């Protein structure tokens, strides 16, 4: 058995080697695939998602399953290579004016919608002005500065901005900003348009069948503008509610790959250690998220900086990263996610290594000596019930804080009540949660620190009630700064001040992972990974 296996492998790699030498230039463009593999066309990819989607169109929702399905059928203006370097998609080339307030996109002229109509600049103008700015959860803020889209001809779109918005240039991919057909949506009730569940896009796949609550089947778009793609014939996405069932499906071969961390981290790591599977941590640059803990600064004790520093010294973020996140992450160092290059920096940023003695001393100095029971004061900790990681981490935090004389009570509630308690009623002392950090700090991080985003009632805003004019000014400057070097410096200064003031304790910068059978090739070739079209994915079987 093992002998014949090695025989086939040898023969296969030999054949692949021959073809690679003949087709060297194209082999180089295959991204993650080893140079010595021949791309095979056709085949069906099976995968699974949860929860079931409401729409099949990510322009009007930010939900996870839609974010996976929609980019297969819709294109964006741009794509992003590793490091969020923009690359062409529906836009062939683009040009940002010197003042950063006019962005000209030259569009492809060979693109057709799935119904045969030609794609034009009108579709782009319509999508941004009428849909993304109005209905997309993040689009409202991402494109706040976008005042108009001019269309001098059918294949040119000019974005006119009130003020420069460098973050916007990182949000033009097919997941975040899919381009919708104006001829289908114009003049209709956009949220109720039947095309939301029968998508007509420009993407490499077309909808073949959709059984609500059960599955979505997508088939190859034979008229796709990018010659030679997609490589698959079909993609079948089943909706399975239970995480352990999803893991079992991968192990039994019922599905070929699991994207977007649809199974728990410990299962990903366990399966990755088995033969026949590969794990890939790249391709999540547009889906960065972190676990962090807000200090409610309206609380008289937590308002003292030394108390917050003491708490930070009592919590070993590496322990949480290694044990709660199973090592799929990096211990938090600054407000930014470690993946937010080139802005993330630890240079000159205060750190709070585990040091219980120092923590105790800080609390004594702050005027909270241990009372006869051994405790100094008590706090309420609200973990978000999204996933189990925040609840598990809160159990660690409670025990660590007990060691320094702070009695913590953990209050678990359902998600809606958690949001109400923390952001509307502000009854929390500490709130521990995971949140998206955004493709750009302006989109994901600013909201937790900007005093203008202290908005009771708005979930995942400035829950700490942090108010530092210096930080406000830095964040505002960075949001509109066209010069990237200057922007990097603004964010560096912000990270230093925020970690000194510590309104929010960053715990873990979460890393995600795709797990796939080893015959699934090229599922991650750029910054967007499976949130892209997967047109380059092929099956070696």
């Amino acid at each position, binding site marked *: 058995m093992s002998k014949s296996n090695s025989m086939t492998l040898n023969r296969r790699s030999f054949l692949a080697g021959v073809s690679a030498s003949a087709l060297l230039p194209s082999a180089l463009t295959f991204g993650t695939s080893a140079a010595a593999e021949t791309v095979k066309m056709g085949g069906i990819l099976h995968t699974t998602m949860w929860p079931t989607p409401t729409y099949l169109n990510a322009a009007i929702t930010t939900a996870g399953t839609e974010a996976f399905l929609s980019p297969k059928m819709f294109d964006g203006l741009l794509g992003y290579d590793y490091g969020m370097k923009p690359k062409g998609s529906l836009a062939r080339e683009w040009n940002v004016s010197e003042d950063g307030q006019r962005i000209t996109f030259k569009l492809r002229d060979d693109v057709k919608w799935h119904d045969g109509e030609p794609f034009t600049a009108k579709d782009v103008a319509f999508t941004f002005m009428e849909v993304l700015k109005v209905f997309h959860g993040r689009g409202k803020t991402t494109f706040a500065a976008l005042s108009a889209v001019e269309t001098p001809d059918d294949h040119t779109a000019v974005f006119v901005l009130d003020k420069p918005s460098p973050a916007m240039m990182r949000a033009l991919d097919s997941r975040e900003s899919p381009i919708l057909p104006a001829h289908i949506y114009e003049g209709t009730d956009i949220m109720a348009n039947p095309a939301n569940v029968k998508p007509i896009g420009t993407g490499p796949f077309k909808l073949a069948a959709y059984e609500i609550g059960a599955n979505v089947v997508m088939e190859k778009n034979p008229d796709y503008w990018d010659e030679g793609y997609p490589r698959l014939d079909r993609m079948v996405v089943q909706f399975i509610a239970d995480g352990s069932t999803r893991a079992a499906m991968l192990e039994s071969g019922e599905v070929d790959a699991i994207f977007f961390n649809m199974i*728990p981290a410990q299962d990903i790591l366990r399966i990755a250690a088995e033969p026949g599977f590969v794990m890939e941590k790249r391709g999540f640059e547009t889906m960065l998220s972190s676990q962090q803990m807000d200090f409610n600064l309206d609380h008289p004790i937590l308002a003292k900086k030394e108390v917050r520093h003491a708490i930070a010294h009592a919590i070993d973020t590496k322990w949480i990263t290694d044990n709660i996140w199973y090592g799929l992450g990096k211990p938090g160092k600054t407000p930014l996610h470690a993946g937010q290059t080139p802005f993330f920096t630890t240079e000159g940023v205060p750190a709070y290594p585990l040091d219980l003695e120092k923590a105790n001393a800080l609390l004594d100095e702050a005027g909270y000596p241990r009372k006869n029971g051994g405790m100094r004061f008590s706090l309420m900790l609200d973990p978000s019930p999204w996933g189990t990681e925040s609840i598990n981490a809160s159990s660690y935090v409670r025990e660590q804080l007990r060691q320094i004389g702070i009695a913590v009570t953990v209050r*678990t509630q359902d998600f809606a009540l958690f949001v109400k308690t923390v952001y509307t009623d502000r009854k929390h002392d500490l709130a521990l949660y995971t949140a998206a950090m955004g493709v750009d700090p302006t989109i994901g991080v600013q909201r937790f620190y900007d005093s203008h985003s202290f908005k009771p009632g708005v979930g995942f805003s400035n829950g700490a009630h942090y108010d530092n004019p210096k930080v406000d000014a830095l964040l505002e400057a960075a949001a509109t700064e066209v010069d990237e070097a200057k922007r990097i410096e603004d964010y560096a200064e912000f990270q230093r001040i925020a970690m000194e003031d510590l309104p929010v304790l960053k715990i873990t910068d979460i890393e995600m992972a795709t797990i796939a059978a080893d015959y699934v090739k090229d599922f991650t070739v750029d910054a967007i990974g499976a949130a892209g079209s997967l047109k380059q994915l092929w099956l070696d079987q």
Partner: protein
Amino acid sequence: MRLSRDTAAFRLISHPSGAIGLILLILVAAMAVSAGWLFPAGPWTMVGAPRVWPGADPRFPLGTDSMGRDILTELFYGSRVSLAIGIVSALVSLVFGTLVGAIAGYYGRWIDDLLMRLTDAVQTIPSFLAAIAIVGVIGPSLTTITIAIAIVSWPMIARLVRADFLKLRSLDFVQSCRIIGMSDLRIIFTQILPNCLAPIIVSSSVLVATAIIVEASLSFLGLGDPNVMSWGTILNVGRQELRSGWYMTAIPALALVVTVLALNLISDALNDSLNPRLKERS
């Protein structure tokens, strides 16, 4: 003090399943009592590396959970909470169920109709789902969990007591009490109730067992009180590691099985020893 041969207590301990059940239960109670003395650091202290298998480190004979807490310590402290929740919620539902059953059975007519329709209504709701709903809405804490369990388990007692009251209230000794002018309350509590205690006592030990299981199930689903260490809490942490460290689930589950088994054995033995007609059987 010597036990006379024909007391119920003697019959209970000489009953084979009663004896086994009692020994097991005493062991569990001893765990609860000695926890603070044997493990003064408490159940939450993270004493070692997480996920140490049982036997791998002599310091942790039953291993550690995913937070690096000693499972043996957790088990000892967990017995306190599990037993307390079981006993308190059983007591609450016992008192409430007895009151409803006694009043309905004694007075009959429209009061009986009213109370029994209420009992029916509660009984038609699947009890575990109802407990999930109550805890889910109010939020998990030791008190809500206890109340939720009591709310879903009193109807069984109410039906039992009512049936006995219906039977007893027409008997001569009750009639004679009425004739000499005894008040209703006195008849209910001093005359009829003592005569239907046997089934109540038997079912109460089953009630405790059920309550312990419901609490563990709630915790297993993540609806337990995160601030107290019960066997359900250990289960909930272990469940997330089921594929890689099944012992974290199996150990507290075993403790649950033993305790519930003990209570059921005792209940069986009680049934035999309190039921005069079965006296000769054992």
